[in-house]
């Protein structure tokens, strides 16, 4: 996982609330065998509509999604996070998120920050006034800005630390790698080994 300090990129006024994980990625895409390459699956049914916001030319290169209340509710599928990430979305700002989705995001390097509803509304207006403009999410300062409008966002300390350090679960364990290596050095020779084949 890459370390995140600030994210800057095309902001999207995603005027929808209660976006559940089935909308983010329908179940039919869960049959795949990869953990990447889900960009085509993101918001699959909505994207059939040429006027859907992510299809519009001014929002190409979408990076920061400003969404309505309760984004990412529903099933636990990690695929929802993968799909957003593969599409190029690296941060989602909303007044409230589905719990499991928020947890999954932190583990997969997707920055998810909460901001009050009326502030999200204000961001929507700012972006729509000049579509294609960038947003900046500063994880160190915990602020999000569009043009010169800057507000603080909420993220829990632990997730923030993981994102700043670029640590997924495996990365966290590998901080103890010296102890793993030490354990392995003392491992008895009778214990199983699959290689060489005999």
């Amino acid at each position: 996982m890459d370390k995140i300090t600030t994210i800057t990129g095309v902001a999207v006024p995603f005027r929808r609330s209660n976006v559940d994980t089935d909308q983010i990625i329908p179940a039919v895409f869960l049959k795949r065998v990869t953990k990447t390459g889900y960009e085509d699956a993101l918001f699959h049914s909505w994207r059939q509509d040429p006027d859907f916001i992510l299809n519009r030319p001014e929002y190409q290169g979408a990076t920061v999604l400003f969404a309505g209340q309760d984004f990412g509710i529903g099933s636990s599928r990690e695929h929802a996070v993968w799909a957003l990430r593969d599409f190029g979305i690296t941060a989602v700002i909303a007044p409230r998120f589905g719990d499991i989705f928020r947890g999954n995001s932190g583990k997969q390097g997707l920055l998810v920050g909460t901001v009050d509803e009326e502030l999200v509304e204000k961001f929507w207006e700012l972006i729509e006034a000049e579509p294609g403009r960038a947003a900046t999410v500063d994880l160190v300062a915990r602020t999000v800005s569009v043009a010169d409008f800057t507000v603080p966002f909420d993220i829990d300390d632990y997730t923030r630390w993981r994102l700043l350090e670029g640590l997924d679960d495996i990365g966290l364990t590998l901080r103890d790698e010296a102890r793993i290596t030490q354990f392995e050095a003392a491992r008895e020779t009778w214990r199983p080994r699959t290689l060489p084949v005999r």
Partner: protein
Amino acid sequence: MSDTATAPSTGPKTLAEKVWNDHLVVKGEDGSPDLIYIDLHLVHEVTSPQAFDGLRQAGRPVRRPDLTIATEDHNTPTLAIDRPIVDLTSRTQIETLRTNCEEFGIRLHPLGDIEQGIVHVVGPQLGLTMPGITVVCGDSHTSTHGAFGAMGIGIGTSEVEHVLATQTLPLAPFKTMAITVEGELRPGVTAKDIILAVIAKIGTGGGQGYVLEYRGSAIRALSMDGRMTICNMSIEAGARAGMVAPDQTTYDYLKGRAHAPEGADWDAAVAYWDTLATDDDAVFDAEVYLDASELEPFVTWGTNPGQGISLSESVPSPDSYSDPNDRQAAERALEYMDLAAGTPMKDIKVDAVFMGSCTNSRIEDLRAFASIVKGQKKADHVRVMVVPGSARVRLEAEAEGLDKVFEEFGAEWRFAGCSMCLGMNPDQLAPGERCASTSNRNFEGRQGKGGRTHLVSPLVAAATAIRGTLSSPWDLAVSTGSTTEGVNA
């Protein structure tokens, strides 16, 4: 769970606590999980693809390819195994496993290989599963390996990736439960009947948060194949794992197998293994007793493995349950199973018999089945499938002529795989079909959409195949004069 009992480093300990403590890389603090070292990682095609892709994406290697081994089992056909797999999703999963193993340097036993088979049959058969080790696999029935006094834990795909990358797993401590089975089994009653009775007794959630230890004279008397049958179904009681302390039976099984320790290593291993048994004064968090001599051949009537009774009984009435949830579950189960309360279990007619799965597909299981069906003919209306757990078991059975016994009986003799244990490959029940199955799950649709499953032992499966209705070997002793002496598989 706050009142966990992972033992301190001193004082009396249970088998499970000893194995756990000897794999502690980092002790968790303030309620965070312990970091546990994994001795053996078994991989199959269904739960591994995203794990490998995760590694690739993060640019991580497999830390210990030499502690990892893969085989193909869930999606593989059990006929025409030399032809391309017809179902595209299945074929993709198999092909993905092959490229992943190639790319990451992992030993793979593909379809057609002599060591291919159900992952939980392959590990023990190679001598890789041994006492005092930790084994994980992206499959809930990893509990099977506990039969050796190993800690076998089933894991999810994110955890598979974690083990591939680090050879460790953060695991929350557990509680311990002793399941003591004393006394002698009557002829015709087997390990499968013990575990079905245990689950009926403690329920499908009874083992939650626990590692079960099976003990007592009836367990000690079992062969390794029988112990594996028991540990396999620990997960059906909701347990984290199930274990049996290693003894001479364990050592005799292991000695000389391809990956079993040799020479000085063997001696050192046995010296250590001898220390693993639960200390006399160790305390379990929970205890359950069962009298083996009272057990009869067992069968499930419902749609979870806890819904079981002796074959001599009748389908229970939902009203006999005081707990409203149990009553509702029973009502739903009877409806799905198309059974009326009060029907004697032995009057239930089956359409199919499935002899196989990681619960009962080892050589002794096949021998037990053969001992009953030898020289007999199956009931006309019943389809009988016999599926060995591994390619090696298949060869062994053929060397003993068991294949001929099965074919003369009218059964289909198949190639190794999970087969009809789950509806993921071509071997499936048709909607409404009823099956006596030696597998481990009787969930709705598990053996095919709309299929109805009765879990049974190999001996009950055999007797049922002969009579066409759920039957125990005892019924045959009456009707055919054959005896079931010495078939305590």
